[in-house]
């Protein structure tokens, strides 16, 4: 299964870090990886519907599992929410969980870039995190 381009992985890492900082300041103890996906969910569901989001996330998860086997404990529910997080935390190494967070988010963003292009994907991200500093990924140029 192909990995997300490094620029997208970098974006995923930065988004997770950004969200983690936000969560720390608000005193939340939830791990950051999946809340980023969770925060994207309503925006994407408005655009493509719950079923559309579920299909997209399921595919991203399937791709991510190839690189991070511990993500096999995670499934996508009918409304697009992720299930099995407790099992994941119980079984997996914290570093592998952190890697899983990045890989899943990078796969999701990578699929969006592949479907609707970098410009529209970054617009979606900006709408969800308006204060997040975001430059062009230039994925298409670097992939050539």
């Amino acid at each position, binding site marked *: 299964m192909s990995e997300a381009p490094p620029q997208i992985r970098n974006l995923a890492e930065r988004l997770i870090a950004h969200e983690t900082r936000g969560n720390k300041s608000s005193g939340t103890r939830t791990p950051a990886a999946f809340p980023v996906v969770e925060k994207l969910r309503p925006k994407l569901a*408005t*655009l*493509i*519907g*719950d079923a*559309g989001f579920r299909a997209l996330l399921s595919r991203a998860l399937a791709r991510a599992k190839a690189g991070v086997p511990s993500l096999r404990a995670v499934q996508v529910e009918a409304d697009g929410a992720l299930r099995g997080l407790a099992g994941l935390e119980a079984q997996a190494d914290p570093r592998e969980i952190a890697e899983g967070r990045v890989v899943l988010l990078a796969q999701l963003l990578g699929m969006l870039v592949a*479907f609707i292009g970098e410009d*529209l994907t970054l*617009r*979606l991200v900006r709408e969800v995190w308006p204060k997040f500093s975001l430059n062009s990924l230039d994925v298409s140029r670097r992939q050539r």
Partner: protein
Amino acid sequence: MKKPNSAAKRKLPKKAAGPPAKVKIHAMPTGVQGLDEILGGGIPEFSFNIVAGTPGCGKTTMVHQIAFANGTPKKPALFFTVLGEPVLKMLRYQQQFSFFDESKVGKAVRFINLSDVAMDKDLNAVLEEIIREVTAANAGVVVVDSFRTLARKATSDVSSAEVQSFIHRLAQFLTSWEATTFLVGEYTEDEIRDNPLFTMVDGIFWLSQVSERNSVVRKLQIVKMRGQATVPGLHTVRIGAGGVQAFSRTLGLIDKQPHKARRRQLSTGVPELDKMLGGGIVEGDSLLVAGPSGTGKSALATQFIAEGLRRGEAGIMAIFEERPEGYTQRAGSFGLNLKAGEQKGKLEILYLRPLDLSVDETMEAILDAIKRVGAKRLVIDSLVGFEMALAPGFRADFRESLYRMIGALTGAGVTILSTVEVEDSFAALQFSHYAISFLTDDIIRLRYVEIDGQLRKVMVVIKMRGGNHSKDIREYVITDKGVVVIHPRRTDYDGLTTGIPTRTGPRKAQAEEAAPEPKA
């Protein structure tokens, strides 16, 4: 009560005469090239419309163009997708068109998926969701795609009366909210009669694909548009890099002003021919040059354009048989420099030969070029090539469209020289395969004749609507000066028009002569 006297009556301030002003219906631009003109100015604001047709006609692309043309951050266009094309795919494909402005997505143009509501709940929930989103966003344009699948799904759950009630409430809300609405759906023509939706909407945009032999052509009809006079009939539609483009049947020529009563006479570039025409082609005339292959029709057309350029009159050559390089080369061999005219922006040579052209889009290309260079002279070389370049389905419309274009252009003062190839029958003098008198003011016929053991060329002015003309049949040659009329009329032959004349005078001694036409 005291009646006001007549003086008091006279002192009353005068009120504006006439009936009270009618409500002004503002027309929104569609963002679809050619469509505003077909609609009579644009889409009536706050109207409730349906964009219908069979799959692949361009419905979704057309409504995207309308949404992108009119959506603003303050009055956004809301694009509700319902059980139709998945949004990811829609965005993926639509962004390929040049009208798709990514910077508008999410602000001026917003996409909202209603598929889940439509699947899991009922029509009331769908309506509530639309009301909630439209109210929150203060939408100016609303698109529901596909409305057909929404209505079909609902019809399987509830009675048709409930579906009608839903449509009525939806229309009432969206109009009251000052939104202009487009419902998109795949419908068949029979449904226009039977489906009450078509009665309820203000406008019906009907898109279709017409196939004939191997060609398929998209068509648009404005079946209905309340409050506005639209151009009737089927209009050609093409989907290109810029999205949907529509070509009005009237070619936008309805409002062209007629030319002045007194008109100049334009030189053809062949002095003796000008004399035969009584001084030249009357400005604003349509001249047809008919003749078989090799008689110099294109040469004459080139000289006509070159003469215009020499006099500072811009021109357009719409060519369908020969490539532009061939034209400029031939002109060069006659000492005429067409390239200079092109470089100065005074001449455009349009090579229009792709397959499956529609007559309207071809004429649109010619009209656009005429506007660009401010052309006073137009050459169409040839009508036969023009007709052959069209998709088979358009050939039936060819003469009608050509008639409209020629009529409007000559009316606006453009002088047109068209060529048509005819076969010499050596029994009669044909002008064309089709009836042409309605197309032309003037006709020049070129033909081969057998004289003194040679196949020579003669020309005659058959008709000149604007005035008197020479009745002489004149021999001409094509030299390094182009078409040159060489002899006065011949009185020693009868039956020149048949191509096989008979000598009536005494046979003269024939000297061996060099070929008179080095460039032929």
